């Protein structure tokens, strides 16, 4: 099959490659861009481990072909700390503090699913949090720690911008 040349911005860096049309975005991120924070679990859209953001929206990277993101912006879990000079994102801090992970395999998917919502809402009740993370499976924690972590992160990220609207957070 003819390879197709694509240009994708991943975490702000331009990645240009010629790829087989059948290459999944998840494989492109891991094997071509060499960013292995995005984990591949089920490869059929059930587990949510491979969730990344494409043009700001969380999507499953195992259900997109790399050719489909030609010219678009992809954001992976590596961006969270990289954008803060290596310091953890408040959501990552909260997962750590609230024991929202055990083995950590599913964590990148949870983080990328939840993170864009934290910028939009002030606080979330548990039902909203559970609906938000319903597309991500965790086989270790039983979810309580994850729900606590999301609730805490939403609370922490809401407070500075609330007191100083438009100010730096």
């Amino acid at each position, binding site marked *: 099959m003819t390879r197709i040349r694509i240009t994708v911005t991943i975490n702000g860096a331009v990645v240009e490659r010629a790829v087989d049309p059948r290459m999944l975005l998840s494989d492109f991120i891991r094997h071509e861009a060499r960013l292995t924070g995005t984990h591949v679990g089920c490869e*059929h*859209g059930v587990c*949510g481990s491979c969730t990344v953001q494409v043009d700001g929206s*969380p999507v499953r990277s195992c259900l997109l072909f790399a050719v489909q993101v030609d010219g678009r912006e992809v954001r992976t879990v590596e961006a969270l700390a990289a954008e803060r000079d290596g310091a953890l994102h408040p959501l990552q801090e909260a997962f750590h503090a609230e024991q929202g992970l055990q083995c950590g395999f599913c964590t990148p998917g949870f983080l990328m699913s939840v993170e864009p919502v934290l910028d939009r809402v002030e606080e979330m009740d548990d039902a909203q949090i559970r609906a938000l993370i*319903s597309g991500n499976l965790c086989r270790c924690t039983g979810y309580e720690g994850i729900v606590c972590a999301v609730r805490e992160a939403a609370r922490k990220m809401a407070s500075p911008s609330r007191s100083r609207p438009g100010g730096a957070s």
Partner: protein
Amino acid sequence: MKPAPFRYEKPRSVEQALALLAAEDEEPKVLAGGQSLVPLMNFRLARPSLLVDINGLAELSYIRREGSRLRIGALTRHAVLEESPLVERHWPLLTEAVRLVGHPQIRNAGTIGGSLAHADPTAELPVALAALDAGFVVRSRSGARELHWSEFFVGQLQTSLQPDELLVETVVPALPAGTGCRFDEFTRRHGDFALGGCAVTVSLDPDGACTRAAIALLGAAPTPIRAARAEAELVGRPVTAESAARSAARAVQDLDPTSDLHASGEYRRDLIESLVARSLLTARGRAREGVPA
């Protein structure tokens, strides 16, 4: 877990897409959101020789009202439908249904046209659109035709779309004033495929008598179906707990849902009956309050 090789084309216009679909020597498949097709390809249950990626066709992504009817472009994402104030105000049944489709990540990518063309009998939107008497506009190089939902869905994962045709638009008629709606389903886990469900509408006159009812069933048959006799029995008098229960029993009377490892057919029938009875009363309440949803 990797798809078989295929040729990839990304047309820049609907005409180009239709020409690609008409290619004689190919087994083409339309790629829209890919949320059902790509899993099938990853399992190699689907092995199209050509993927026609319509994601560049921005002209197929819209939600607008023309006259009294709602028109939804085939490439509209579930998340866009979910957040449309126009839809929530005038067709709240669709808003209620789309919130139950998969998970947030699926709704960000999946398209309305893709869900319809995939024709899964447990999908929410086909059932909601059956209750709303929707039609679908399909195009090929030889022209366009509009199919009523009952002509479009022909079997499990089967539609009357021809290989050279592209679904381009969903057309939804307006609901009469004094109509309440309800979409409900039962799943074992949030976002799972439903074991059973229903979409109902109840229209009341100022005295509270039912002037029109629609009952569409999910997971009851290989396609969405309407319970016409159960609907007719509701018309002409107020909807009460007793008449809702009678109508629900009538709706499932001749059903023979599938038995599989998730549930027996008998369980599904009882489940759908309960959901219909409950939903009719909820829809009646909403019709009375004039609250759309």
